[in-house]
Protein backbone atom coordinates (compact mmCIF):
# COMPACT_ATOMS: atom_id res chain seq x y z
CA UNK A 1 0.00 0.00 0.00
CA UNK A 2 1.68 3.12 -1.20
CA UNK A 3 -0.55 5.71 0.37
CA UNK A 4 -2.53 5.47 3.54
CA UNK A 5 -6.16 6.02 2.74
CA UNK A 6 -9.12 4.44 1.10
CA UNK A 7 -9.15 6.23 -2.23
CA UNK A 8 -10.55 4.21 -5.12
CA UNK A 9 -9.67 5.44 -8.57
CA UNK A 10 -12.79 6.09 -10.64
CA UNK A 11 -14.09 8.73 -13.01
CA UNK A 12 -17.51 9.77 -11.74
CA UNK A 13 -19.26 13.08 -11.02
CA UNK A 14 -18.91 12.37 -7.32
CA UNK A 15 -15.16 11.97 -7.72
CA UNK A 16 -15.02 15.30 -9.48
CA UNK A 17 -16.75 17.19 -6.68
CA UNK A 18 -14.57 19.47 -4.62
CA UNK A 19 -13.17 17.63 -1.58
CA UNK A 20 -14.36 20.38 0.72
CA UNK A 21 -17.94 19.93 -0.46
CA UNK A 22 -17.78 16.25 0.30
CA UNK A 23 -16.27 16.96 3.69
CA UNK A 24 -19.10 19.37 4.46
CA UNK A 25 -21.67 16.82 3.40
CA UNK A 26 -20.13 14.20 5.66
CA UNK A 27 -20.00 16.55 8.63
CA UNK A 28 -23.51 17.88 8.02
CA UNK A 29 -25.16 14.51 7.65
CA UNK A 30 -23.43 13.25 10.79
CA UNK A 31 -24.40 16.30 12.84
CA UNK A 32 -28.01 16.19 11.65
CA UNK A 33 -28.45 12.55 12.62
CA UNK A 34 -27.17 13.43 16.07
CA UNK A 35 -29.43 16.43 16.43
CA UNK A 36 -32.51 14.65 15.16
CA UNK A 37 -32.46 11.10 16.47
CA UNK A 38 -35.39 9.87 14.46
CA UNK A 39 -35.43 6.78 12.34
CA UNK A 40 -36.91 8.64 9.39
CA UNK A 41 -34.09 11.19 9.28
CA UNK A 42 -31.55 8.41 9.67
CA UNK A 43 -32.97 6.38 6.81
CA UNK A 44 -33.28 9.43 4.59
CA UNK A 45 -29.62 10.35 4.89
CA UNK A 46 -28.50 6.76 4.65
CA UNK A 47 -30.40 6.30 1.41
CA UNK A 48 -28.88 9.51 0.09
CA UNK A 49 -25.36 8.44 1.03
CA UNK A 50 -25.79 4.98 -0.43
CA UNK A 51 -27.14 6.55 -3.59
CA UNK A 52 -24.10 8.79 -3.86
CA UNK A 53 -21.80 5.87 -3.22
CA UNK A 54 -23.55 3.97 -5.99
CA UNK A 55 -23.06 6.79 -8.48
CA UNK A 56 -19.43 6.82 -7.47
CA UNK A 57 -19.33 3.10 -8.15
CA UNK A 58 -17.74 2.38 -4.81
CA UNK A 59 -20.72 0.62 -3.23
CA UNK A 60 -18.75 -2.61 -2.89
CA UNK A 61 -16.09 -0.80 -0.88
CA UNK A 62 -18.69 0.88 1.27
CA UNK A 63 -20.23 -2.45 2.12
CA UNK A 64 -16.78 -3.70 3.11
CA UNK A 65 -16.43 -0.72 5.43
CA UNK A 66 -19.85 -1.36 6.91
CA UNK A 67 -18.91 -4.98 7.48
CA UNK A 68 -16.14 -3.74 9.72
CA UNK A 69 -18.68 -2.32 12.13
CA UNK A 70 -21.08 -5.22 11.83
CA UNK A 71 -19.95 -6.75 15.10
CA UNK A 72 -20.34 -3.41 16.84
CA UNK A 73 -23.82 -3.02 15.36
CA UNK A 74 -24.92 -6.41 16.54
CA UNK A 75 -23.69 -5.71 20.05
CA UNK A 76 -25.58 -2.41 20.05
CA UNK A 77 -28.76 -4.30 19.29
CA UNK A 78 -28.06 -6.82 22.00
CA UNK A 79 -27.19 -4.32 24.68
CA UNK A 80 -29.85 -1.74 23.93
CA UNK A 81 -32.45 -4.39 23.27
CA UNK A 82 -31.89 -5.94 26.67
CA UNK A 83 -30.66 -3.22 28.99
CA UNK A 84 -31.87 0.16 27.75
CA UNK A 85 -33.12 2.25 30.63
CA UNK A 86 -36.40 3.05 29.00
CA UNK A 87 -37.24 -0.56 28.27
CA UNK A 88 -40.84 -1.35 29.02
CA UNK A 89 -42.53 -3.38 26.29
CA UNK A 90 -41.12 -6.85 25.81
CA UNK A 91 -41.10 -7.93 22.20
CA UNK A 92 -39.64 -11.41 22.20
CA UNK A 93 -37.42 -13.77 24.10
CA UNK A 94 -34.42 -15.76 23.08
CA UNK A 95 -32.63 -18.24 25.29
CA UNK A 96 -34.26 -16.78 28.41
CA UNK A 97 -33.11 -13.24 27.41
CA UNK A 98 -35.83 -10.68 26.89
CA UNK A 99 -35.63 -8.02 24.18
CA UNK A 100 -37.71 -4.89 24.53
CA UNK A 101 -39.30 -2.71 21.87
CA UNK A 102 -37.98 0.61 23.13
CA UNK A 103 -34.42 -0.65 23.31
CA UNK A 104 -34.54 -2.18 19.87
CA UNK A 105 -35.93 0.99 18.38
CA UNK A 106 -33.17 2.96 20.02
CA UNK A 107 -30.66 0.49 18.68
CA UNK A 108 -32.02 1.08 15.21
CA UNK A 109 -31.46 4.82 15.62
CA UNK A 110 -27.93 4.31 16.93
CA UNK A 111 -26.96 1.85 14.22
CA UNK A 112 -28.46 4.10 11.57
CA UNK A 113 -26.39 6.95 12.95
CA UNK A 114 -23.27 4.80 12.77
CA UNK A 115 -23.98 3.60 9.24
CA UNK A 116 -24.75 7.13 8.18
CA UNK A 117 -21.49 8.48 9.50
CA UNK A 118 -19.56 5.74 7.75
CA UNK A 119 -21.45 6.11 4.47
CA UNK A 120 -21.15 9.87 4.42
CA UNK A 121 -17.47 9.86 5.32
CA UNK A 122 -17.14 6.91 3.01
CA UNK A 123 -18.05 9.11 0.09
CA UNK A 124 -15.31 11.47 1.16
CA UNK A 125 -12.64 8.84 1.79
CA UNK A 126 -13.42 6.59 -1.17
CA UNK A 127 -13.70 9.26 -3.82
CA UNK A 128 -11.14 11.81 -2.72
CA UNK A 129 -7.38 11.66 -2.86
CA UNK A 130 -6.08 12.64 0.57
CA UNK A 131 -3.61 15.05 -1.01
CA UNK A 132 -6.50 16.73 -2.89
CA UNK A 133 -8.51 17.08 0.29
CA UNK A 134 -5.59 18.68 2.02
CA UNK A 135 -4.95 20.92 -0.97
CA UNK A 136 -8.54 22.12 -0.85
CA UNK A 137 -8.34 22.79 2.86
CA UNK A 138 -5.10 24.71 2.40
CA UNK A 139 -6.78 26.72 -0.34
CA UNK A 140 -9.48 27.62 2.14
CA UNK A 141 -7.13 28.68 4.83
CA UNK A 142 -5.55 25.66 6.49
CA UNK A 143 -1.90 26.38 7.22
CA UNK A 144 0.24 24.87 4.44
CA UNK A 145 2.64 23.50 7.02
CA UNK A 146 -0.11 21.54 8.75
CA UNK A 147 -1.42 20.42 5.41
CA UNK A 148 2.01 19.26 4.36
CA UNK A 149 2.54 17.30 7.57
CA UNK A 150 -0.74 15.44 7.18
CA UNK A 151 -0.25 14.75 3.48
CA UNK A 152 3.30 13.50 3.88
CA UNK A 153 2.49 11.24 6.81
CA UNK A 154 0.04 9.39 4.60
CA UNK A 155 2.84 8.39 2.26
CA UNK A 156 5.81 8.29 4.52
CA UNK A 157 4.31 5.85 6.98
CA UNK A 158 3.85 3.12 4.34
CA UNK A 159 7.38 3.95 3.19
CA UNK A 160 8.65 3.31 6.67
CA UNK A 161 7.03 -0.09 6.50
CA UNK A 162 9.04 -1.07 3.44
CA UNK A 163 12.18 0.37 5.01
CA UNK A 164 11.39 -1.70 8.09
CA UNK A 165 11.31 -4.81 5.92
CA UNK A 166 14.77 -4.07 4.60
CA UNK A 167 16.07 -3.38 8.10
CA UNK A 168 14.67 -6.69 9.29
CA UNK A 169 16.38 -8.41 6.36
CA UNK A 170 19.70 -6.78 7.21
CA UNK A 171 19.52 -7.68 10.89
CA UNK A 172 18.36 -11.24 10.23
CA UNK A 173 21.33 -11.54 7.93
CA UNK A 174 23.49 -10.80 10.94
CA UNK A 175 22.05 -13.72 12.83
CA UNK A 176 19.22 -11.95 14.61
CA UNK A 177 16.50 -14.36 15.65
CA UNK A 178 13.03 -12.96 15.25
CA UNK A 179 11.17 -15.64 17.17
CA UNK A 180 11.64 -17.16 20.55
CA UNK A 181 11.69 -15.88 24.08
CA UNK A 182 10.47 -12.44 25.02
CA UNK A 183 14.06 -11.41 25.56
CA UNK A 184 14.94 -12.45 22.00
CA UNK A 185 11.99 -10.63 20.54
CA UNK A 186 12.77 -7.50 22.51
CA UNK A 187 16.32 -7.55 21.14
CA UNK A 188 14.85 -7.92 17.66
CA UNK A 189 12.59 -4.97 18.33
CA UNK A 190 15.51 -2.76 19.33
CA UNK A 191 17.52 -3.80 16.27
CA UNK A 192 14.60 -2.74 14.14
CA UNK A 193 13.51 0.43 15.91
CA UNK A 194 16.97 1.93 16.16
CA UNK A 195 17.75 2.29 12.45
CA UNK A 196 14.10 2.99 11.63
CA UNK A 197 13.74 5.94 13.95
CA UNK A 198 17.21 7.30 13.39
CA UNK A 199 16.88 6.91 9.65
CA UNK A 200 13.49 8.61 9.69
CA UNK A 201 14.78 11.55 11.67
CA UNK A 202 17.75 12.04 9.36
CA UNK A 203 15.50 11.71 6.35
CA UNK A 204 13.06 14.20 7.80
CA UNK A 205 15.86 16.70 8.21
CA UNK A 206 16.94 16.23 4.58
CA UNK A 207 13.38 16.50 3.43
CA UNK A 208 12.98 19.79 5.27
CA UNK A 209 16.05 21.02 3.38
CA UNK A 210 14.54 19.91 0.09
CA UNK A 211 11.28 21.71 0.89
CA UNK A 212 13.21 24.85 1.71
CA UNK A 213 15.04 24.63 -1.60
CA UNK A 214 11.77 24.30 -3.44
CA UNK A 215 10.22 27.43 -2.05
CA UNK A 216 7.94 26.00 0.58
CA UNK A 217 8.41 28.98 2.88
CA UNK A 218 7.59 31.50 0.14
CA UNK A 219 5.16 34.16 1.18
CA UNK A 220 3.78 34.62 -2.32
CA UNK A 221 0.22 33.52 -2.96
CA UNK A 222 0.38 29.88 -3.88
CA UNK A 223 -1.04 28.44 -7.09
CA UNK A 224 -3.13 25.31 -6.92
CA UNK A 225 -2.52 23.02 -9.82
CA UNK A 226 -5.68 21.00 -9.30
CA UNK A 227 -9.01 22.42 -10.21
CA UNK A 228 -12.27 21.45 -8.55
CA UNK A 229 -15.56 22.20 -10.30
CA UNK A 230 -17.10 24.49 -7.72
CA UNK A 231 -13.85 26.21 -6.90
CA UNK A 232 -13.53 27.65 -10.38
CA UNK A 233 -13.75 31.38 -9.89
Amino acid sequence: MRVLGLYVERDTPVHKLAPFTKLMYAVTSTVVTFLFPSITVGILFLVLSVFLNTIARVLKHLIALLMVVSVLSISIFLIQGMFYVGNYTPLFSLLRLTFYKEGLLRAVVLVLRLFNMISAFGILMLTTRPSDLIDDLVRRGLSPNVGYVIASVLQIVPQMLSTATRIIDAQRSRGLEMNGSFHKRFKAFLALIGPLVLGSLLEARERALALEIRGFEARTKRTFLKDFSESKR
Partner: protein
Amino acid sequence: MGSTEKIKIESLTYAYPFSDKNALENISFSIMPGECVGIIGRNGAGKSTLCLALTGLVPKFFKGRYSGKVLLDGEDVRQISYEKLVTKIGLVLQNPFSQITGARITVYEEVAFGLENLGIPRDEIKQRVEAVLKALDLWEKRDENPFELSGGQLQKLAIASVLVLQPEVLVLDEPTSQLDSGGTKEVFEIISQMKSQGITIVLVEHKYEMLVEYVDKIIFLQEGKMIAFDEAEKIFSLPEIDEYMVGEPIYTKLCKKLNSKNSRGYYPVKFSEAVGILREARCGSDR
Protein backbone atom coordinates in the same frame (compact mmCIF):
# COMPACT_ATOMS: atom_id res chain seq x y z
CA MET B 1 33.08 47.45 -6.79
CA GLY B 2 30.46 46.18 -9.21
CA SER B 3 31.37 42.55 -9.65
CA THR B 4 30.63 40.53 -12.73
CA GLU B 5 31.28 37.33 -10.82
CA LYS B 6 28.21 35.18 -10.48
CA ILE B 7 29.48 33.55 -7.32
CA LYS B 8 32.16 34.94 -5.09
CA ILE B 9 33.29 33.35 -1.88
CA GLU B 10 35.56 35.32 0.46
CA SER B 11 37.45 33.61 3.28
CA LEU B 12 34.59 31.32 4.17
CA THR B 13 35.18 29.37 7.36
CA TYR B 14 32.45 27.24 8.89
CA ALA B 15 32.05 24.66 11.63
CA TYR B 16 28.89 22.70 12.37
CA PRO B 17 27.38 23.09 15.85
CA PHE B 18 29.01 20.85 18.49
CA SER B 19 31.98 20.27 16.23
CA ASP B 20 35.47 21.48 17.09
CA LYS B 21 36.71 20.88 13.58
CA ASN B 22 36.13 23.33 10.74
CA ALA B 23 34.10 21.79 7.95
CA LEU B 24 35.34 24.55 5.67
CA GLU B 25 38.43 26.65 6.23
CA ASN B 26 39.27 29.93 4.55
CA ILE B 27 37.70 29.13 1.20
CA SER B 28 37.95 31.83 -1.45
CA PHE B 29 37.13 31.64 -5.16
CA SER B 30 35.01 33.23 -7.88
CA ILE B 31 32.86 31.70 -10.57
CA MET B 32 31.81 33.68 -13.62
CA PRO B 33 28.31 33.53 -15.09
CA GLY B 34 27.80 30.51 -17.32
CA GLU B 35 30.83 28.66 -16.02
CA CYS B 36 30.63 25.00 -15.13
CA VAL B 37 32.77 24.13 -12.12
CA GLY B 38 33.39 20.74 -10.58
CA ILE B 39 34.20 20.00 -6.94
CA ILE B 40 36.33 16.99 -6.11
CA GLY B 41 37.78 15.57 -2.92
CA ARG B 42 37.55 12.64 -0.57
CA ASN B 43 34.31 11.98 1.29
CA GLY B 44 34.36 14.23 4.31
CA ALA B 45 36.39 16.96 2.58
CA GLY B 46 33.56 19.46 2.85
CA LYS B 47 32.09 19.25 -0.64
CA SER B 48 28.48 18.94 0.49
CA THR B 49 28.99 21.65 3.09
CA LEU B 50 30.29 23.94 0.38
CA CYS B 51 27.18 23.22 -1.71
CA LEU B 52 24.98 24.12 1.25
CA ALA B 53 26.98 27.31 1.84
CA LEU B 54 26.45 28.41 -1.76
CA THR B 55 22.70 28.38 -1.22
CA GLY B 56 22.80 29.94 2.22
CA LEU B 57 21.36 26.86 3.87
CA VAL B 58 24.60 26.93 5.77
CA PRO B 59 24.28 28.85 8.10
CA LYS B 60 20.52 29.45 7.86
CA PHE B 61 19.47 25.88 8.47
CA PHE B 62 22.43 24.52 10.34
CA LYS B 63 23.60 27.47 12.49
CA GLY B 64 27.15 26.76 13.63
CA ARG B 65 30.22 29.07 13.53
CA TYR B 66 30.33 31.02 10.25
CA SER B 67 32.71 33.68 9.06
CA GLY B 68 33.45 35.10 5.65
CA LYS B 69 31.05 35.77 2.80
CA VAL B 70 29.21 34.03 0.03
CA LEU B 71 28.09 36.50 -2.65
CA LEU B 72 25.65 35.81 -5.48
CA ASP B 73 25.73 38.59 -8.06
CA GLY B 74 27.46 40.72 -5.48
CA GLU B 75 24.83 40.20 -2.78
CA ASP B 76 25.49 38.32 0.45
CA VAL B 77 23.51 35.13 0.27
CA ARG B 78 22.28 35.62 3.82
CA GLN B 79 20.75 38.94 2.82
CA ILE B 80 18.89 37.87 -0.31
CA SER B 81 15.17 37.45 0.23
CA TYR B 82 13.96 33.89 0.37
CA GLU B 83 11.70 34.15 -2.67
CA LYS B 84 14.46 35.67 -4.77
CA LEU B 85 16.99 33.13 -3.58
CA VAL B 86 14.86 30.18 -4.62
CA THR B 87 14.82 31.27 -8.24
CA LYS B 88 18.42 32.37 -8.18
CA ILE B 89 20.08 29.20 -7.00
CA GLY B 90 18.89 25.61 -6.86
CA LEU B 91 20.49 22.66 -5.08
CA VAL B 92 20.07 18.99 -5.82
CA LEU B 93 21.09 17.07 -2.70
CA GLN B 94 23.01 13.83 -2.59
CA ASN B 95 20.35 11.42 -1.41
CA PRO B 96 17.50 11.13 -3.93
CA PHE B 97 15.22 9.22 -1.56
CA SER B 98 14.89 12.01 0.94
CA GLN B 99 14.16 14.70 -1.62
CA ILE B 100 10.65 13.54 -2.42
CA THR B 101 8.28 15.81 -0.57
CA GLY B 102 5.97 12.94 0.28
CA ALA B 103 2.98 15.23 -0.10
CA ARG B 104 2.38 14.48 -3.76
CA ILE B 105 1.30 11.21 -5.30
CA THR B 106 2.42 11.55 -8.87
CA VAL B 107 5.73 12.46 -10.44
CA TYR B 108 3.97 15.28 -12.30
CA GLU B 109 2.59 16.89 -9.15
CA GLU B 110 5.88 16.38 -7.39
CA VAL B 111 7.72 18.44 -9.99
CA ALA B 112 4.97 21.08 -9.99
CA PHE B 113 5.24 21.47 -6.22
CA GLY B 114 7.98 24.07 -6.24
CA LEU B 115 6.16 26.20 -8.82
CA GLU B 116 2.92 26.05 -6.82
CA ASN B 117 4.80 27.40 -3.84
CA LEU B 118 6.04 30.35 -5.86
CA GLY B 119 2.62 31.26 -7.19
CA ILE B 120 3.49 30.69 -10.83
CA PRO B 121 0.33 30.79 -13.01
CA ARG B 122 -1.21 27.41 -13.72
CA ASP B 123 -0.63 27.41 -17.46
CA GLU B 124 3.02 28.22 -17.03
CA ILE B 125 3.36 25.45 -14.47
CA LYS B 126 1.99 22.94 -16.96
CA GLN B 127 4.33 24.15 -19.66
CA ARG B 128 7.44 24.06 -17.51
CA VAL B 129 6.67 20.71 -15.92
CA GLU B 130 6.13 19.07 -19.27
CA ALA B 131 9.32 20.51 -20.70
CA VAL B 132 11.48 19.42 -17.82
CA LEU B 133 9.96 15.93 -17.57
CA LYS B 134 10.56 15.37 -21.25
CA ALA B 135 14.13 16.64 -21.03
CA LEU B 136 14.88 14.14 -18.27
CA ASP B 137 13.02 11.29 -19.96
CA LEU B 138 10.49 11.06 -17.14
CA TRP B 139 7.39 12.02 -19.11
CA GLU B 140 6.27 8.40 -19.41
CA LYS B 141 6.39 8.11 -15.65
CA ARG B 142 4.46 11.28 -14.90
CA ASP B 143 1.46 9.49 -13.36
CA GLU B 144 3.47 7.14 -11.24
CA ASN B 145 3.98 7.49 -7.52
CA PRO B 146 7.44 8.87 -6.75
CA PHE B 147 7.97 6.16 -4.16
CA GLU B 148 7.65 3.52 -6.86
CA LEU B 149 10.63 4.83 -8.82
CA SER B 150 14.07 3.25 -8.82
CA GLY B 151 17.05 5.04 -7.28
CA GLY B 152 18.24 6.29 -10.64
CA GLN B 153 14.84 7.61 -11.67
CA LEU B 154 14.51 9.32 -8.30
CA GLN B 155 17.78 11.06 -8.92
CA LYS B 156 16.45 12.38 -12.21
CA LEU B 157 13.23 13.40 -10.48
CA ALA B 158 15.21 15.36 -7.90
CA ILE B 159 17.02 17.20 -10.67
CA ALA B 160 13.76 17.86 -12.52
CA SER B 161 12.11 19.25 -9.39
CA VAL B 162 14.83 21.85 -8.98
CA LEU B 163 15.43 22.52 -12.66
CA VAL B 164 11.78 23.44 -13.14
CA LEU B 165 12.34 26.47 -10.91
CA GLN B 166 14.70 27.78 -13.62
CA PRO B 167 17.49 28.88 -11.30
CA GLU B 168 20.36 30.99 -12.60
CA VAL B 169 22.80 28.84 -10.69
CA LEU B 170 22.42 25.09 -10.26
CA VAL B 171 24.39 23.18 -7.67
CA LEU B 172 24.37 19.38 -7.87
CA ASP B 173 25.78 17.15 -5.16
CA GLU B 174 26.76 13.80 -6.71
CA PRO B 175 23.82 13.68 -9.11
CA THR B 176 24.83 10.35 -10.66
CA SER B 177 25.71 8.32 -7.57
CA GLN B 178 22.81 5.90 -8.07
CA LEU B 179 22.97 5.84 -11.85
CA ASP B 180 24.66 3.39 -14.20
CA SER B 181 26.63 4.62 -17.21
CA GLY B 182 23.50 5.17 -19.33
CA GLY B 183 21.82 7.29 -16.70
CA THR B 184 25.05 9.13 -15.99
CA LYS B 185 25.37 10.10 -19.65
CA GLU B 186 21.78 11.40 -19.60
CA VAL B 187 22.45 13.61 -16.61
CA PHE B 188 25.61 15.02 -18.11
CA GLU B 189 23.77 15.76 -21.33
CA ILE B 190 21.24 17.78 -19.33
CA ILE B 191 24.12 19.60 -17.69
CA SER B 192 25.53 20.34 -21.10
CA GLN B 193 22.16 21.69 -22.27
CA MET B 194 21.90 23.91 -19.22
CA LYS B 195 25.40 25.14 -19.81
CA SER B 196 24.44 26.19 -23.33
CA GLN B 197 21.50 28.09 -21.87
CA GLY B 198 23.89 30.13 -19.79
CA ILE B 199 23.14 28.58 -16.41
CA THR B 200 26.05 28.60 -13.98
CA ILE B 201 26.70 25.09 -12.75
CA VAL B 202 28.57 23.73 -9.77
CA LEU B 203 28.80 20.00 -9.44
CA VAL B 204 30.29 17.52 -7.02
CA GLU B 205 31.21 14.34 -8.82
CA HIS B 206 33.43 11.29 -8.39
CA LYS B 207 33.05 10.04 -11.95
CA TYR B 208 36.02 12.00 -13.19
CA GLU B 209 36.03 10.59 -16.72
CA MET B 210 32.68 12.25 -17.39
CA LEU B 211 33.29 15.32 -15.23
CA VAL B 212 36.37 16.55 -17.04
CA GLU B 213 34.61 16.57 -20.40
CA TYR B 214 32.07 19.14 -19.16
CA VAL B 215 33.70 21.45 -16.63
CA ASP B 216 35.71 24.60 -17.17
CA LYS B 217 37.46 24.40 -13.81
CA ILE B 218 37.70 22.20 -10.75
CA ILE B 219 37.81 23.01 -7.04
CA PHE B 220 39.88 20.49 -5.12
CA LEU B 221 39.00 20.21 -1.44
CA GLN B 222 40.73 18.26 1.30
CA GLU B 223 39.71 18.40 4.97
CA GLY B 224 37.81 21.63 4.53
CA LYS B 225 40.64 23.46 2.81
CA MET B 226 40.81 24.39 -0.84
CA ILE B 227 43.95 22.85 -2.25
CA ALA B 228 43.51 24.27 -5.73
CA PHE B 229 41.03 25.87 -8.11
CA ASP B 230 42.11 25.45 -11.69
CA GLU B 231 41.59 23.71 -15.00
CA ALA B 232 41.07 19.98 -14.84
CA GLU B 233 44.40 18.92 -16.31
CA LYS B 234 46.32 21.16 -13.92
CA ILE B 235 44.39 19.80 -10.95
CA PHE B 236 44.93 16.15 -11.78
CA SER B 237 48.62 16.71 -12.37
CA LEU B 238 49.12 18.05 -8.84
CA PRO B 239 51.17 15.90 -6.45
CA GLU B 240 48.43 16.33 -3.84
CA ILE B 241 46.13 14.20 -5.97
CA ASP B 242 48.38 11.23 -5.35
CA GLU B 243 49.21 12.27 -1.80
CA TYR B 244 45.56 12.42 -0.73
CA MET B 245 44.64 9.46 -2.94
CA VAL B 246 41.76 11.30 -4.53
CA GLY B 247 42.01 9.35 -7.77
CA GLU B 248 41.93 10.58 -11.35
CA PRO B 249 40.47 9.60 -14.72
CA ILE B 250 41.67 6.13 -15.66
CA TYR B 251 43.54 7.23 -18.74
CA THR B 252 45.23 10.02 -16.77
CA LYS B 253 46.48 7.33 -14.43
CA LEU B 254 47.82 5.41 -17.42
CA CYS B 255 49.61 8.45 -18.72
CA LYS B 256 51.09 9.03 -15.27
CA LYS B 257 52.41 5.48 -15.26
CA LEU B 258 53.97 6.02 -18.66
CA ASN B 259 55.00 9.54 -17.69
CA SER B 260 53.38 10.89 -20.85
CA LYS B 261 52.43 14.52 -20.66
CA ASN B 262 50.74 16.73 -23.22
CA SER B 263 52.19 19.74 -24.98
CA ARG B 264 51.30 22.04 -22.09
CA GLY B 265 53.23 19.89 -19.66
CA TYR B 266 50.28 18.23 -17.92
CA TYR B 267 48.86 14.76 -17.86
CA PRO B 268 45.88 14.67 -20.24
CA VAL B 269 42.46 14.32 -18.66
CA LYS B 270 40.17 14.22 -21.66
CA PHE B 271 39.59 10.92 -23.41
CA SER B 272 40.46 11.98 -26.93
CA GLU B 273 43.64 13.74 -25.88
CA ALA B 274 44.72 10.78 -23.73
CA VAL B 275 44.18 8.40 -26.63
CA GLY B 276 46.42 10.51 -28.82
CA ILE B 277 49.18 10.70 -26.20
CA LEU B 278 48.97 6.97 -25.49
CA ARG B 279 49.23 6.14 -29.15
CA GLU B 280 52.40 8.19 -29.33
CA ALA B 281 53.75 6.49 -26.22
CA ARG B 282 52.98 3.13 -27.75
CA CYS B 283 54.79 4.00 -30.95
CA GLY B 284 57.82 5.07 -28.99
CA SER B 285 58.17 1.77 -27.10
CA ASP B 286 58.43 -1.92 -27.78
CA ARG B 287 54.97 -2.98 -26.70
